[in-house]
């Protein structure tokens, strides 16, 4: 089966799950349903098949261009959603995760980012480099999910402040739970990124990328430290989680634009 077809099927699943939930929320009768979970699980299964097929074809971790990076990032976000969403009973996290996964994959499918095999970074077929790239992308997945939880926090917080409750208010988790989830997701991402950077140092990846990675590491480390010292309010942490991921995503794109053949 053509791997792009697998990707299209996965993207469609996320779109379907998101559309269904938006419709249910619109009618005010949203209940965490099997349909929503099934759509996310279906999307994840197709994503996984795509990555396995690509990995076999490349004989390496499929992180050789921005196209694959985006799919791997989307996969890690959904993977973390299944872990975190279940653990913290943040069922609505899926509603916010689905559009993000859909956006990444639709973008990857529409924009010609998938370079021909000959142009790809073959040097990735080294265990340390694969570890560095894969662990780093999963870390960015955790940061993405922290950003998603940050958006949920800000929506809920605004409703509590203004006393105007929309239908979403009753479905969103308490802000205390969201604050804990944001903190733990950033901590998870930070630990993974530390491992990713250390494995990157071991194989001496390009300095530009190392500096970028260290920059991201410092931003999230700063957020964690400020939160620990209680120098910032939970609302500020949520805002920082959203801003930090937006910056990370934008710079990732910029970095790849400068060096399209490279991996992370």
């Amino acid at each position: 089966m053509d791997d792009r077809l697998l990707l299209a099927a996965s993207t469609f699943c996320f779109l379907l799950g998101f559309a269904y939930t938006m419709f249910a929320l619109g009618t005010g009768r949203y209940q965490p349903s099997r349909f929503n979970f099934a759509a996310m699980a279906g999307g994840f299964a197709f994503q996984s098949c795509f990555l396995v097929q690509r990995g076999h074809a490349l004989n390496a971790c499929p992180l050789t261009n921005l196209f694959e990076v985006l799919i791997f990032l989307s996969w890690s976000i959904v993977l973390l959603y299944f872990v975190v969403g279940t653990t913290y009973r943040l069922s609505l996290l899926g509603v916010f995760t689905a559009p993000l996964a859909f956006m990444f994959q639709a973008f990857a499918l529409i924009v010609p980012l998938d370079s021909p095999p000959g142009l790809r970074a073959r040097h990735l077929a080294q265990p340390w480099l694969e570890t560095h790239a894969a662990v780093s992308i999963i870390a960015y997945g955790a940061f993405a999910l922290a950003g998603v939880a940050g958006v949920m926090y800000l929506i809920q917080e605004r409703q509590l402040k203004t006393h105007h409750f929309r239908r979403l208010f009753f479905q969103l988790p308490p802000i205390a739970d969201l604050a804990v989830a944001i903190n733990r997701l950033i901590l998870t991402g930070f630990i993974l990124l530390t491992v990713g950077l250390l494995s990157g140092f071991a194989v001496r990846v390009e300095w530009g990328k190392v500096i970028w990675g260290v920059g991201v590491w410092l931003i999230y480390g700063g957020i964690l430290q400020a939160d620990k010292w209680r120098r910032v309010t939970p609302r500020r942490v949520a805002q920082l989680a959203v801003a930090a991921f937006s910056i990370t995503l934008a710079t990732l794109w910029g970095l790849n634009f400068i060096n399209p053949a490279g991996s992370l």
Partner: protein
Amino acid sequence: MEVFCLGLSHQTADVATRERFAFAEHEIGVCSGELRRRPELGEALILSTCNRVELYAAAPDPAVGLDSIEAFLVARAALEPADRKFFYRRHGPGAVRHLFRVVSGLESMVLGETEILGQVKKAYSIAAESGATARHLNKLFQRAFNVAKEVRTRTNITRGPVSVGSVAVDLAEKIFGRLSTCRAMILGAGETSELTARALMSRGAHGIFVSNRSYERARVLAEESRGEAVGFEQWHECFDDIDILISSTSAPHMIVTPEKLGHAMRKRGNRPVFVIDLALPRDVDPAVNDLDGVYLYDLDALRDIAARSMSVRRQELAECERLIERHVDEFAGWLANGGAAPMLAQNSGAVRTAQAL
């Protein structure tokens, strides 16, 4: 065989009348059995709550059956002809519809409240255990529990809090999650603040501090709520330890200002605080709501939320009635066929079903 009911409720009788006809819990089983033994009645069930007393039964002739229930009430509670105006009689689809509406909270004093479902389940369990119900009432009540569940999950009839106390509790849960880790302070011991504090405690909040101009009054209330009395001048010293502040003093000026609270918030490491201002004139400067981590609600805001929830519930009435009507038709069809469809359970199984629902 037809099902029917005779009863009175908060809509037809005042509390004194309802009291006269009410059944104590220990009487329900005995009286249900007594009703069933009457030759005119095949099955019987008594529902007695503070808002309604209803006697359900099944018999071939509903007119005779209803008269028999009335005779039972004459003997037991001295029902007089003048009392008849308080009672309603329903039979056939009317009785089925009435039960489905009752169990779904559509006939409750607070539209959509869910306590009634538990009360009906209990009444059914008692009647079934005493052998007063059989296939028709078993089927009717099991269907009623399913209807209540469907109405609750497929409509917004139970959506949102509808009293000041429940609004406060719901908001606290939206801020803090579990209330078992929350501590509250009552500033000025008024009746509404007491009720709100009790509502919070019923959901797990603990360690209530009470501060009042009269220390004695604070001490009494603190003892009642197993809390701690604090001198009125020292209330802000406890601010680090609390998550919820309920204020209802009779002070003519603002007691909680952004300056005081801003300083206290920095000291408490920016942990969120839920401030409920129930005083008139208000105790809390509205500007404190602009501080990060402070969620301020005054009496108007709480009442407004309760009213909006009630309005949402009223909008759902038509949808609930449509759902109920479908089940009434199905059940009436089953009755018209003489109960030909297979029964869900025998008595003992039916009790287990009711308890598990």
